[in-house]
């Protein structure tokens, strides 16, 4: 059964169409990667799925329910969690408090009930030693981890990751991949936008290629990457 | 017939409110700044004109012409040295600084000119009226309205026909990119506030000629101006004129029913528009 399904979803900003009739399904428990050149509309697609943007046309179903017109806040409560491409921490709150906001509101529970869960997420994302540091003081890697941790704190069924590995060193990237694999192994469905292909390919089972807001390829990662068309569009070079 | 007269008086009154509002609208349009001292600046303009009239013996219209460059410089300096420093993502600093300015200005006027109400000297012109069929129209209200229309035409010409207007629009769209094109947003903002204070001077002239004034009436002028701007839709100058007219007509109709209801009727008209069209009658697309 598919946990998420998009049917002919479109979005324009003025004359510019950034999502152009996107239709695809994500089966429960799968990890789907999304690639495409800059400006292809990847982040817009995410914002449409999470409700930070409202689609102009088409419909989005989550667990069989039509959520096309549902707010971002409610979509979070139904089980859609996300990270932002440019980390958006609550800078004046500590790392622990960042998670606490997400856990108490995203799951509608009291602080005492979620305390240990938050600590657990902090341990798994290797942020525990920074628990009491204001998020504004974190390094890039830590901010990326916090994005992941905060999304995890809402205990999502579907987790959307937006370029979470970008700008990290190889070692940092490997550690992050391990964390994401671990989350995936627990049955969380993942959709992941990433430029760092090797990171993406070590996790996802399916790959979706976006260009000019259109889905131009969807399938097995190796086959997709092997297709000449995709290589040309994505990298702009014949490799 | 009395109703037609009431409505026409209201439309002409709307001209005055549009004059109050045009400066506020200009400044907001370019730098998204709401100047809470706007009403007090109008009152200050009126006192400046009064001062020129009494000290130099100038007729009010000439005094206003002399006051304009002074007010321009004041606006320029105010923006350059004070208000520019408050602009940013946080809305608190500009609000609180202009609110502090409003209180300080009001009390400076009180200290200097006392709380007694004053009036600019009237002449034959200011009390004259013309007969249009069965309706008698004051020359002063007609002049006020004509001035409002002229100010709005002039602003539109400035915006769409001059290099400065181009820079205004570009800075309003995107100040960072404008600076990449060699425009200094800080200077553009200072000039805009200077121009707003020229319009304030025109509004001040008619405010002083039309009725008595004292240092405390600024905030009410700010509120009328604000209502006209919101009704018209943020950033639309012709909308601002229409907004002024709606407030003016509502007030004269309210006053015709019961003199105590004049101000209230204007506010209620504003709330009704807000209820039906939260973004005003002519909203700009990209706000």
């Amino acid at each position, binding site marked *: 059964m598919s946990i998420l399904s998009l049917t002919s979803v479109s979005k324009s900003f*003025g*004359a*510019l169409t950034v999502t152009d009739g996107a239709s695809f399904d994500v089966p429960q428990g799968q990890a789907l990667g999304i690639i495409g*050149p*800059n*400006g*292809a509309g990847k982040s817009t697609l995410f914002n449409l799925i999470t409700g930070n943007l409202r689609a102009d046309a088409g419909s989005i179903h989550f667990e069989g329910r039509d959520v096309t017109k549902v707010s971002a806040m409610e979509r979070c409560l139904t089980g859609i969690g996300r990270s932002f491409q440019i980390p958006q921490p609550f*800078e004046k709150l500590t790392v622990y408090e960042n998670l606490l906001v997400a856990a108490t509101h995203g799951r509608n529970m009291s602080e005492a009930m979620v305390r240990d869960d938050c600590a657990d997420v902090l341990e798994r994302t290797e942020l525990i030693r920074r628990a009491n540091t204001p998020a*504004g*003081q*974190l*390094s*890039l890697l830590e*901010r990326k981890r916090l994005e992941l941790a905060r999304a995890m704190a809402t205990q999502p069924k579907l987790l959307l990751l937006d*370029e979470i590995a*970008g*700008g*990290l*060193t*190889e070692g940092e*990237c490997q550690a992050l991949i391990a964390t994401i694999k671990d989350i995936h192994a627990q049955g969380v469905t993942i959709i992941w936008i990433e*430029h*760092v*292909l*090797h990171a993406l390919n070590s996790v996802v089972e399916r790959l979706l290629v976006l260009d*000019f807001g259109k889905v131009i390829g969807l399938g097995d990662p190796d086959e997709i990457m092997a297709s000449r068309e995709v290589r040309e569009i994505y*990298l*702009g*070079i014949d*490799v | 017939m009395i109703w037609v007269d009431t409505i026409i008086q209201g439309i002409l009154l709307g001209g005055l409110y549009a004059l109050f509002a045009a400066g506020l609208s200009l400044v907001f349009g370019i730098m998204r700044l709401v100047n809470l001292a706007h009403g007090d600046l109008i009152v200050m303009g009126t006192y400046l004109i009064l001062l020129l009239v009494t000290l130099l013996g100038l007729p009010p219209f000439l005094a206003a012409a002399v006051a304009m460059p002074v007010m321009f410089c004041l606006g320029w300096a105010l923006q350059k040295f004070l208000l520019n420093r408050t602009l940013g993502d946080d809305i608190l600093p500009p609000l609180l600084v202009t609110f502090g300015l409003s209180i300080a200005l009001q009390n400076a006027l009180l200290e200097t000119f006392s709380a007694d109400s004053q009036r600019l000297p009237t002449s034959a012109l200011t009390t004259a009226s013309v007969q249009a069929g069965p309706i008698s129209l004051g020359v002063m209200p007609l002049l006020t309205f004509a001035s409002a229309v002229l100010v709005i035409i002039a602003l539109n010409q400035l915006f769409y026909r001059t*290099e400065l207007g*181009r*820079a205004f*629009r*570009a800075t*309003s*769209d*995107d100040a*960072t*990119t*404008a*600076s*990449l*094109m*060699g*425009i*200094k947003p800080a200077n553009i903002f200072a000039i805009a506030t200077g121009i707003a204070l020229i319009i304030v001077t025109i509004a001040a002239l008619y405010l002083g000629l039309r009725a008595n004034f004292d240092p405390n009436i600024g905030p009410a002028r700010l509120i009328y101006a604000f209502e006209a701007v919101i009704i018209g839709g943020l950033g639309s100058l012709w909308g601002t004129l229409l907004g002024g007219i709606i407030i003016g007509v509502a007030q004269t109709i309210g006053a015709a029913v019961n003199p105590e209801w004049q101000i209230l009727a204007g506010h209620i008209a504003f709330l009704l528009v807000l209820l039906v069209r939260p973004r005003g009658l002519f909203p700009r697309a*990209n706000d």
Partner: protein
Amino acid sequence: MALLQTRDLIAHYGDFQALFGVDIELAENETIAIIGANGAGKTTLMRSIAGVLNNAAEAVMFDGTAIGTRPADEIMAQGVAMVPEGRRLFPSLSVEENLLIGTYGRKTIGHWTLETVYDLFPILRERRNSPGTALSGGQQQMVAIGRGLMSNPRVLLCDEISLGLAPVVIKDIYKAVPAIKAAGASLIVVEQDIAQAMAVADRVYCMMEGRVTLSGTPDSLSRDAIHDAYFGAGH
């Protein structure tokens, strides 16, 4: 001597450090390309040179003067113009007005005028009175480049000018580069499209994580070296 140079350029956004000591050089009449993945610091580098971000004075040298602390409008007046990422046309200005903004408040003497820009991109002459936002992406990019040229700059900074454009359109836009060089400007081109960068540039810098990881002439750089510098080793 280099026309434009950065020396140990460091940039922060709040607590977050985006550039860690970047050194690049641009000679008179040269074109250099900066390549790198998202978040590598390319746009930050451009914004630092153009004066949107403040740096140490000596960190950016132009024509022998330290300009690192100058505001954007002064740097522009000195002769460094920028075509910003995402084109950033002024939505309330027409095409022609957008171009004229490049000459605000000064008389510029040089090759580029409304006429010569229209000759470079003839389609803009037809659409001169349309609002900038009504144009296609490629046409908007032409306006953005034209707007930068109108000040007759000595250095033109082009940030991701092929972003979101179809390959055919990108080719069209890059056709203008020889004319721009012929009129006497030096170019810094930020590109994600590696092939395009290689084709147009005299020299290439590759950035990763706020540092230059590779530089040289296009011929001297192997595909593998670029890949490693671009994505990090291991792919």
